[in-house]
């Protein structure tokens, strides 16, 4: 089930695509499963069909879903690995921005590396706890 908060600072199309990704990762949507048509989802969410279309376009570009014309839209059979690739790509982009930001403020790269390793250790402890 998708739940969209229209007052959220996160754009609606991004909420849609993030939740579809989460549904695939969480097993709610199986590989190869059908997705609702753009008009049906837009009508149910009371949003513009162009908003849903944008989310679907991004997901298709990332290889998470595939559209087969009149036959409909389906979760890509390679969605699992494509999701990982897409997450790696997003994370890499954010990491590069972070490195640029903090080196721009005067931190050394070795400082950043140390901070990153500490953060990984801290998250690892949190998970095992």
């Amino acid at each position, binding site marked *: *089930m*998708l*739940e*969209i*908060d*229209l*007052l959220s600072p996160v754009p609606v199309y991004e909420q849609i695509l993030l939740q*579809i990704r989460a*549904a695939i990762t969480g097993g*709610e*949507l199986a590989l190869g*499963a*059908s*997705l*609702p*048509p753009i*008009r*049906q*989802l837009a*009508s*149910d*969410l*009371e*949003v513009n069909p162009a908003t849903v279309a944008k989310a679907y376009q991004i997901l298709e570009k990332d290889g998470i879903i595939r559209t087969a014309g009149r036959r*409909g839209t389906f979760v890509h059979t390679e969605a699992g690995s494509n999701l990982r690739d897409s997450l790696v790509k997003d994370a890499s982009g954010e990491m590069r921005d972070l490195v640029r930001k903090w080196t721009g403020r005067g931190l050394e790269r070795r400082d950043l590396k140390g901070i990153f390793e500490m953060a990984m250790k801290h998250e690892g402890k949190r998970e095992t706890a």
Partner: protein
Amino acid sequence: MRLLIESILYGLQIVSVFLVAGPVMARAERQRSLSRNPGWAAANREFLLSHRQPSMSPLTAVALVLLALLAAAGLLGSPLAVFAVHGPIFALGVAGVYAFYWKQERDLRKRIPGDTVQRADLSLRTLSRFLGPWSRVPLIALASTALAVNVGGAFMGTMQTGRCLGNLAYLGLFAGLISYALSQSLRRPAYRTSGETDSQGRTFELRIILAVGYMMAAVALYHALGSLGSNPLLPMPPSLLHAKLEGGRFSWSHFLAAAPYRAIDYAATVFLIAVGAWIAGSPFYRKVLAVDFTKAPRPSEI
């Protein structure tokens, strides 16, 4: 005597549609309008209390007018007048009342702001998701048999071509209407009361439409069998369309008096009475009508 029995039967049909099923459906649509934003409705208590129930006056007024017309037609002793009330005037009454409540609910929904949180199911809505194959396959078989009897009869020369074309025109029209109704029920936005209610609501709607489809397919097959051979077992009188296609004469008095037509008419009337009772007694509608919006229920609570 026949007119008296018919008047009682048609009167029950009017009561079932306008006074039994009609109020239930009108109230359920009002609940659906209010569920557009339950939090807002509860916060605007005055608005909620003044719009909690739709007016039943249109339903009552149309029912009383139809019953009065039916009584008058019966007293006149005119089968054509009785048919006019039971057929086209009844249909106009249904259309008029539907249009009234549709507009009223549409105007009300414009006054209620949309909920800031919207929900949607991520699965594809298909007929097979709501109705099992054993409810659908026999309908397709029935309609296909009607089609085969018509085409086969015309091909073998046991059915007049004009009669075949008329039957196929009706069959095509009914198939089109049922297909359209089924697709609209699948496509319409979800009931916002809850996902469970939406699924139940859609299943119930689809079952009603399918039941009407079975009725129409049975009538089409009955028509087809009643059009075969020079001495058919159940000779169907030509309808107005058939008469035009066959180039024959059409007589209302002959058509209305013919036993096969009467059988279809009575069956359809009893069917409508039963559907009215089915709707009024449906657990889905009872669940929808039980929701109290003064308490701002969350969808998961319904």
